[in-house]
């Protein structure tokens, strides 16, 4: 539970008890690893790793986005064209980051 709370970035609240606005990149990467592990694969440490080569498919991205939503408490809806531009692990993390800031 502590691990989960430390992953939050808290905006504008000096006491740290206010609105939880986004899930940190490191935590998203951790969740991406969990999605892959559940399917018997592993997530490379290199952000330039190709998604096709590591077997991370669009449905895996959906699962990751839903896990992030669960922690965020808000929906991250997006159109398919945005997803098609994603090719590497870093792209996934960038895209999730972008969705949260949109």
């Amino acid at each position: 539970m502590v691990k989960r709370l430390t992953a939050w970035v808290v905006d504008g609240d000096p006491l740290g008890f206010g609105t939880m606005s986004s899930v940190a990149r490191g935590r998203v990467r951790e969740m991406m690893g969990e999605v892959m592990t559940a399917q018997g694969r592993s997530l490379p440490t290199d952000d330039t790793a190709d998604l096709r080569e590591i077997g991370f498919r669009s449905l895996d991205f959906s699962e990751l986005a839903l896990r992030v939503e669960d922690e965020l408490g808000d929906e991250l809806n997006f159109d398919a064209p945005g997803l098609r531009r994603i090719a590497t692990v870093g792209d996934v993390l960038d895209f999730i980051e972008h969705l949260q800031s949109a």
Partner: protein
Amino acid sequence: MSEVSLVPPASVVLVSGGSRGLGLAIVTDLLAAGLKVAAFARTVTPELAALSEKYPDHLHFGSVDINDAEAGQAFVKQVEQVLGPIDALVNNAAIGQDSLHVHTSADHLSEIIRTNLTSPLILTRFVLRRMLAKGLKGRIVNITSICAQRGYPGLVAYSATKGGMDAATRSLARELGGRILANSVAPGFFASEMSAVLGQTQLDQIVRRTPTGHLTEPEDVLPVVRMLLLENTNINGQVLVVDGAASI
């Protein structure tokens, strides 16, 4: 990379419109097969309540209007707590129609589309999100109708919604990449429905034109739904018609 990864048999099934008719028959059949079943409908019938006495640990039911998305989603979360994660959905809830298109009010037309198409898609979206977020595989069975494939007077909007669900079934099967199997079961007209609107002479004529010699009964549909929920058949994105070949 290609891996053969089968979708396991369903264990916790959510059935919409499970209080009467085919829905109730599906609930009863799945409980008898040992599955955990959650059922909702606008009105809970004594028959559904009686089933919960027979299967207290396997059946969870509630009074929920399919058009009340918030209530539906709350029910799904409740089911997960009581029975465990849902890994199968039977979209059965629907309202019928018996009016010519030109004499169907715009409001009634919207109500048919909302109940039979929009709300099931919203429920499906929510259940799928829960399944995917938990890393589950699962199965969806949409109960549609022969009306989606053949024209019948008095059923214009109803037919459009059932055709819409069949089309959604195919796209879901593609979109979900084999992780969730999505299929439709399309019964012909049930004997009970036909007898309510047709005279005996007309009924006899339809039966004569049906190669199997009898109209569809809920019992004809149950094994097909059960198969799609439990068996490994590689059937995905299909519409299985159960009508004794009356429509061919």
